[in-house]
C-alpha cells in the first residue's frame, strides 16, 4: 500500500502495513529479559555457592515458587483489568485452616479440598460483587476482605496451627500424577499455558486487555466489562485457595499466618513480570517468571548466607530495576 499524503512534500516514504505477527522472541521480549535475568542471577549465585545450580536446589526453588506462581497468575488477571487484589494472602491462609479443620473433623480429602476452594470462591465472588455491582474501589474492597479473611484464619482454630494427616486425595497428596513430574510443577505449567493461550488466542482473553486499556471504550463496544472484572476476582480467589491447598498438602500443617507475606510478593511478581498496575498490559508467562524471580532471589540470599532480613531489600531493588527497564524500553506507551 502506497502512502500519498497532501501537497508539497515530494519525498514520500513508501510504507507497507505488515500482517506478519512479530516473532515469539519479539512479542515476549519482556518475558525473555526476565528469564535471562533469572538465569544470570542463578549463575551469579552459583559462582559463590556451586550447590545453587544442583538439581536438588532447582527442585527446592520450584517447590517454593509454586504457590506464589499460582497466586500471581490470579492477581495478574485482576491487575490486567485495572484492579488489584490484596486479599489473596489471607484467602491462602484461611483455605489451609479450613481444609485442615475439615479433615480433623473427619472429612475425606475430596470434601476438605472442596471446602478449602469454597473459601476462594466466596471471597473472590465477594470482591467481584463489591467492585462491579456496588462499585467500590478495588483497593478498598480487597483491603476489607484481606482483613476479614485474615482474622477468620485465626478464629476458626482459635489461632492454633492444625496438622493434617497424609490425605488420600490426589490433589492433597504431593505425589506425581505424571511419573517424575512433581504435581505442583505440573499445575503451574498447566495453569500458565492455559491462561496464556486464553489471553492471546481466545477473544475472551483479549477482552481482559480491552477492559484494562479503557473500561469506558470497552463498555461502549458492547464488551461485558463487569462480568470480565467479576471473573478476574473469582479466578484470583480460587487460585489463591488452590495455592493454599498445595501448600498444606506439602507441609502437612496449616497455619493462620502462612500467607501473610505472599500478597505483596504476588503483586511484586506481577509488576516484575511486566504488567502495569493501571491495567491492560502484561502476560501470564511474565507473572510466572516474576514469581520465579522473587523465589530465586530469596533462595540466593539464603544460599550465600546473607542475613535473610536482606531479602526484602533485594526484592525491592529487583522491582525497581524491572519497572525502570520497562519505563525506558517502551517509548510507544503513553
Amino acid at each position, binding site marked *: 500500500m502506497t502512502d500519498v499524503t497532501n501537497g508539497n512534500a515530494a519525498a514520500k516514504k513508501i510504507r507497507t502495513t505488515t500482517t506478519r505477527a512479530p516473532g515469539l522472541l519479539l512479542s515476549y521480549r519482556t518475558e525473555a529479559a526476565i528469564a535471562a535475568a533469572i538465569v544470570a542471577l542463578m549463575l551469579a549465585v552459583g559462582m559463590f555457592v556451586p550447590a545453587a545450580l544442583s538439581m536438588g536446589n532447582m527442585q527446592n526453588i520450584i517447590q517454593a515458587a509454586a504457590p506464589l506462581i499460582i497466586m500471581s497468575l490470579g492477581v495478574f488477571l485482576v491487575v490486567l483489568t485495572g484492579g488489584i487484589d490484596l486479599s489473596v494472602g489471607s484467602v491462602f491462609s484461611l483455605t489451609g485452616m479450613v481444609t485442615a479443620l475439615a479433615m480433623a473433623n473427619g472429612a475425606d480429602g475430596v470434601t476438605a479440598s472442596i471446602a478449602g476452594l469454597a473459601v476462594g470462591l466466596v471471597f473472590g465472588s465477594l470482591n467481584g460483587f463489591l467492585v462491579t455491582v456496588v462499585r467500590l474501589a478495588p483497593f478498598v474492597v480487597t483491603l476489607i476482605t484481606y482483613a476479614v479473611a485474615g482474622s477468620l484464619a485465626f478464629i476458626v482454630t482459635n489461632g492454633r496451627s492444625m496438622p493434617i494427616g497424609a490425605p488420600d486425595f490426589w490433589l492433597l497428596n504431593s505425589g506425581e500424577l505424571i511419573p517424575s513430574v512433581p504435581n505442583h510443577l505440573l499445575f503451574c505449567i498447566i495453569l500458565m499455558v492455559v491462561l496464556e493461550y486464553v489471553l492471546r488466542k481466545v477473544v475472551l482473553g483479549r477482552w481482559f486487555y480491552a477492559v484494562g486499556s479503557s473500561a469506558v471504550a470497552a463498555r461502549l*463496544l458492547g464488551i461485558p466489562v463487569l462480568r470480565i472484572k467479576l471473573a478476574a476476582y473469582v479466578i484470583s480467589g480460587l487460585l489463591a485457595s488452590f495455592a493454599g491447598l498445595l501448600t498444606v498438602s506439602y507441609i502437612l500443617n496449616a497455619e493462620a499466618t502462612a500467607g501473610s507475606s505472599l500478597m505483596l510478593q504476588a503483586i511484586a511478581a506481577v509488576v516484575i513480570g511486566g504488567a502495569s498496575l493501571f491495567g491492560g498490559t502484561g502476560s501470564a508467562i511474565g507473572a510466572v517468571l516474576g514469581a520465579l524471580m522473587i523465589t530465586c532471589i530469596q533462595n540466593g540470599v539464603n544460599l550465600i548466607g546473607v542475613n535473610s532480613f536482606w531479602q526484602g531489600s533485594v526484592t525491592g531493588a529487583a522491582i525497581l530495576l524491572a519497572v525502570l527497564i520497562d519505563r525506558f524500553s517502551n517509548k510507544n506507551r503513553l
Partner: protein
Amino acid sequence: MEPVQSLGGGTVAAAGQAFTRESLIEASNVEKSYGATRVLRGVDFQVRSGEIHALLGGNGAGKSTLVRIVTGLTPRDAGEIRFSSAKTNSIHPIIAVVHQELALLPELSVAENIGIVHARSGFSRSSHRRMRDVALNALDLIDPAIGREIVDLPARKLSLHEGQIVEIARALSTGAEVLLLDEPTANLTAGETAKLFSVLKRLVHDEGIGIVFVSHRMKEIRELCHVCTILRDGITVVNATPVALLSDAEIVQQMGQPAHDVAGRLKSKKEVRQGSPVEFLGPDDARMEIWPGTILGLAGAPAGPTGLINPLVGAGRGAGWHVSGEGFKGSFSSPSQAARAGVGFISGDRTMKGILSQLPIVDNVLAARRVREGRQIVGAAERQECLDLVSALKLKAVSIWDLPASLSGGNQQKLIVARWLGLPLRLVVLEEPTRGVDIGTKHDIYALIRHMADAGAIIVWWSTENIELLELCDAIFAFDTDGRPKGFLSEERFTEDGLAELTGMAA
C-alpha cells in the same frame, strides 16, 4: 453597550470608553508544526485593552494551538509575540485562561481557591483572613453581591456560572489584563449567559482589560464582541475586524472550507426506501421518522444531540428520547444491549471512549466484529480481514501489531471507523467522526459513511461543523442553544445561514 466603530485604522471604541486602547498582546506570523502537519502557517493576532475580541475558526483551524502558544503552554516554531503591560515592571502573567472545564479545587472554599495562587511559596503561612480579603476584593470587581454570598462555600457547591465567576476573579486577582474564555457559555443556561455577559462588558468597560472570546454561537458573538479574528487552515483570514462590518454569511464563509463541490454528490437518492422506518420520539412532542439508508444530521449545542444519542447507544441517561420501530423498543439500558440490536457507535471522545490503548491495532480494528459476531477464538483469518480494512481505509500503519499510539490522530480516527465497516448494522451513531482529521481523510470518511448508509443502515451523525452536515446529510435535525429540539431544517433553507439561524450557532 453597543460597539461603535471608528473609521481610522480599524480601531473600535465603545461609547464612553474610559481607557485608551493599547495593544496588550501582539502576535505576528506565528508558525507551528506538529510533525509534518503545519497547524499554524503565519497567524497574526492582536488583543487590545477595553475590547472583547472573538477568536473564530472551524475545527482544526488552529484556534486552540494559537491559544496554547499565546499562553505559553506550547513553544512556537517561528513568529513573534509581544506583551505590553499597562502596569510597568510587572512580572505577573498578563493573560489568564478560563477553560470550559473549570479548574477549581472542589473541596477548598472559594476564598482558598482564589487566594491559593497568591502564596509566595508552599511553606508560607496560610492566613485564612488574608485569603478571604484577596478573594473578596477580586469578587467585588465582578459582583459584590455574589462575592459575600459564595466566598466561604466549598467550590463543589457552586453553580457553573458561579464557578466561572470565581475563575475570572482568580485571574483578575493575579493582575491578568487579558482574559481568554474558551467557549464559556457551552454549559450555561440562557439566564446565566446573560449574567456572564454583563459581567464581561463591565470588566472591559470599567477595568479596561482585554477579553478573547472563543465561541461558535453567532448570536453571542454579535451581542458581546467588538472585533473578530478568523482563522482558517492555520492562517488569519480576518484580522481584528469589527463584527458589525461582517454579515453572518460572511463570517461563516470565512470560517468554512472552500470545497463545496461535494454537496449533493454524496446525497442519497431520496426515493429509494427500503425496509421500514424507525421513529425517534423526544421531549416537546418532537418526532422523527427515519428510513433505513438515511443519514440524519444532528446540529446544535451539545446538550441536545447527546440527549438523543445516549439512549440510542445505551451509554447513559438521555433527555427523554426513545426509539420505536421494528427491532427497536424504547431505549437501550446498556451498550451491549444496543450492540445486540445492531447499533454501532463512534464516540466523539477518541482517547477515552474509543481507542483501546494497550491493545495492538489488529485487536482494536476487530473489536466490534468480535463482539457482534460472538467470535470465540482469535483466528488467523482475522489478520487478512484486518489488513483488508486497513488498506480500504488507507490507514497508515507500519504494522498491525503496533499499539494505536503509533498512529497519528487522523489515522486513529480511521481505525475507529474501520471497526464498523462491513458489519450488518441497523443504526450507526457518530459523534464528530472527522474531528482532528485533514480534508483528504475527511472525504474518505464521508464516503465510508455514505457506504454504510447505502448498505441499509440509519446513520445518526452529530457534528459541530454545519458545513459538513449540509454536504452529507439527507436530513438535519436541529437543537437550540439550550439543547431543546427545534425541528428539521427545511428543504428550502438547507444552507449554512438556515442552519445557523435554526440552531443559533455559527459553526
